[in-house]
């Protein structure tokens, strides 16, 4: 038994007011579905049912798009940028006011540790709204052309890994540019989106500017296919991203896609080694590895591979896996049974391929979906676990000898979302950054996000950028409106 045992430090659930069931948020109000059905949202750490949620039908999607269109032509599309900005500032402030509530709800619904939702997800979400509020009346400065205009109605489908943050990344720029929104949160994590609808009401956001339609694949398809949607924004798997790209081919619908990744986290022999180990841990075990830009491949210079492996394993033995609502938890639950199954299958494949599997000792709760942080060493480029996105707390370790080899291996993938470089040598950082085919390069850090900093991928990690001045491009058109 460790000398210094941390007693349970649970964050109270009392701050959250869960309703037994939720309708859809259309036209500024919560409303019952027309022809849709209900499904349950559960807490992945305990399998407890949190609430019943509506699966929106295509009739519901029609209504939502209609409400968004009316809001666009009626109020929002005519409103001055300064006034749009004021609404976004209000939303940002309310998110800050209700921060604790959102953080707890996010951890309950998603399974991520409360420390993450409290210290990362919710503050960043509020910051996104704050940043974009200021752009609403400054679009002419954003190098978007002489007369940047909104598209109209934007359809947005977001994933389950950062539910509230992904909502912020989508809605904030869309609204700042003058669009109205129909957004579908992921089917396993709808609750913070539904709470966000309350924030819209508290901010007196005009009806129909934001519409939240919950559901699964069919609802998402209905949005993608809807003729009343001018632009789509999707974050999720590359597979679905390709489906969307095919679905809109030949139409005038625009799309931005933020898809999967298999990022290389590259450690050179002159890396600041203790911080590099932290970077590896942050890269793949933060958010249970449910991160599109996760550093899921460790590319370590062969001369220090053994040392890094030893330090990494020692560091992993202090990771705390457990109740997401415990303030000391580092690694929470896997988001769903389906995801757990995928991770289990792929890691089994890794073993079958001949890689060496290791996990720290840790007790896992009996209920809920859990996976121990796992490290595979002796991984080769051709192994499935070096090529396929696992989207779980699983690290594949490969080695390299020279910067060129590191670059070649890092780029040798259809993905291109992010990469990490660890070295004390500035010129090498900049040279590597030039060579790496990735939309985000983190040097001597990892998984850092900021509303001002554009994020997005190369190749099959998608196209378009979110955040920063560049992220506004997706939400304006400089051509004639339809």
């Amino acid at each position: 038994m460790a000398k210094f045992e941390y007693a349970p430090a649970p964050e109270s659930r009392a701050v959250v007011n869960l309703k037994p069931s939720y309708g859809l948020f259309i036209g500024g109000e919560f409303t019952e579905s027309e022809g849709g059905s209900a499904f349950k949202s559960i807490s992945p750490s305990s399998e407890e049912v949190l609430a019943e949620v509506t699966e929106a039908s295509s009739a519901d999607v029609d209504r939502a798009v209609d409400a968004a269109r009316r809001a666009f032509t009626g109020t929002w599309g005519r409103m001055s940028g300064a006034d749009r900005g004021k609404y976004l500032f209000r939303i940002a402030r309310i998110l800050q006011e209700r921060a604790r509530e959102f953080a707890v709800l996010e951890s309950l619904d998603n399974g991520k540790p409360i420390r993450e939702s409290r210290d990362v997800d919710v503050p960043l979400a509020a910051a996104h709204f704050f940043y974009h509020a200021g752009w609403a009346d400054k679009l002419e400065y954003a190098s978007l052309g002489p007369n940047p205009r909104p598209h109209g109605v934007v359809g947005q489908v977001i994933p389950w890994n950062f539910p509230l943050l992904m909502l912020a990344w989508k809605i904030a720029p869309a609204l700042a540019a003058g669009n109205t929104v129909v957004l579908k949160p992921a089917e396993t994590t709808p609750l913070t989106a539904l709470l966000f609808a309350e924030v819209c009401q508290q901010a007196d956001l005009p009806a129909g500017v934001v519409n939240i339609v919950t559901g699964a694949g069919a609802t998402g398809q209905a949005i993608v296919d809807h003729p009343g949607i001018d632009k789509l924004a999707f974050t999720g798997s590359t597979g679905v991203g390709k489906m969307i790209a095919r679905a809109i081919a030949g139409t005038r619908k625009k799309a931005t896609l933020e898809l999967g990744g298999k990022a290389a986290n590259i450690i050179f022999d002159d890396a600041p080694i203790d911080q590099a180990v932290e970077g590896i841990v942050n890269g793949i075990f933060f958010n249970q590895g449910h991160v599109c830009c996760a550093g899921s491949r460790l590319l370590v210079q062969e001369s220090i591979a053994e040392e890094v492996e030893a330090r990494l394993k020692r560091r992993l033995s202090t990771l705390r896996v457990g109740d997401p609502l415990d303030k000391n938890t580092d690694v929470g639950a896997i988001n769903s049974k389906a995801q757990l199954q995928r991770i289990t299958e792929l890691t089994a494949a890794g073993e079958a391929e001949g890689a060496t599997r290791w996990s720290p000792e840790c007790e896992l709760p009996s209920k809920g979906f859990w996976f121990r942080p796992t490290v595979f060493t002796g991984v080769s480029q051709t192994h499935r676990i070096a090529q396929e996105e696992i989207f779980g707390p699983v690290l594949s370790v490969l080695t390299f000898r020279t910067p060129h080899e590191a670059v070649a291996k890092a780029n040798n993938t259809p993905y291109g979302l992010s990469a990490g470089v660890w070295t004390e040598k500035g010129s090498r950082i900049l040279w590597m950054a030039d060579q790496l085919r990735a939309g985000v390069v983190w040097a001597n850090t990892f998984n850092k996000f900021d509303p001002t900093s554009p994020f997005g991928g190369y190749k099959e990690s998608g196209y378009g950028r979110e955040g920063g001045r560049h992220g506004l491009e997706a939400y304006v058109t400089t051509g004639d409106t339809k």
Partner: protein
Amino acid sequence: MSTSTAPRDAVDATSRARDLLGVSRLTNDSLTSWLHGLPGVDQVGCEARAAMLGTRSIKTTSKAWAIDTAISMIDLTTLEGADTAGKVRGLCAKALTPDATDMSTPRPAAVCVYGDMVPFAREVLGTSSGVNIAAVATAFPSGRASMAVKLADTRDAVANGADEIDMVIDRGAFLSGRYLDVFNEIAQVKEACGSARLKVIMETGELVTYDNVRRASWLSMLAGGDFIKTSTGKVSPAATLPVTVVMLEAVRDWLQLTGEMVGVKPAGGIRTSKDAIKFLVAVSEVAGDDWLDPHWFRFGASSLLNDLLLQRQRMRTGAYSGPDYVTDDSPSLY
């Protein structure tokens, strides 16, 4: 792994250093190569790790344990020009009975005083109280004096009965790259200590960068220090959590390399229980259980003790306490 408390003497330090460096002669150049070959410390990453450790929420039973452990790790300190026998006796009485309303309260590990105050401390503490006497020496706090003076200072303190010596390194020498001089001074002071344990104060606030803290830590361990210590407490910033994390990494890696343990003492600026607990978290998660012991980890502090006592009282009574309920045996009022 050695938790031996047997002192290592200066001659061994030099030959061991030659061995570890793999050189036939210990020169400033070889020391420089070795120290500058240590991995760098990224400031932002280091501070982020410290901040993360600071978010640990230590409650109920673990908080009670942490408070008592922290108390038992304190070097209760008075290092003022205006110190008198009376002040020192008061400090020592406090060390023996931190909280007269609760005799279950543990005693601090040591008192820390100037060398000429040691006899007064010994009068009160005796030889079996379990509270050691640490004395600062080597022209504390500046370290600006000749080697002869510094050694005489050390010997006096040892002769007066000090169990531990807290020395300062020559920061001027360190910052101008004269690592061999720093090595030699530590090794010689260690020799003058006899059986007293040697803590090496690096004055991290003056070293400024984490890279320097790492190098100074390794140099101090190489030269035979039993403890590496952050600060004199006379310079700000003194002990910070990130600096202490770097030092904990150093002793962890030193143990891996040599099989020997070296202690860590953050000193100065640690005033609240909350802060102290963050440091204990850092010890636990960076260096490990072996260091969670007063023999290998100390807090150099004065007002921290009373804050820990206030927290202890709150845990016992359920109500927030106040300064009227903890004794201040050596208030610092000139």
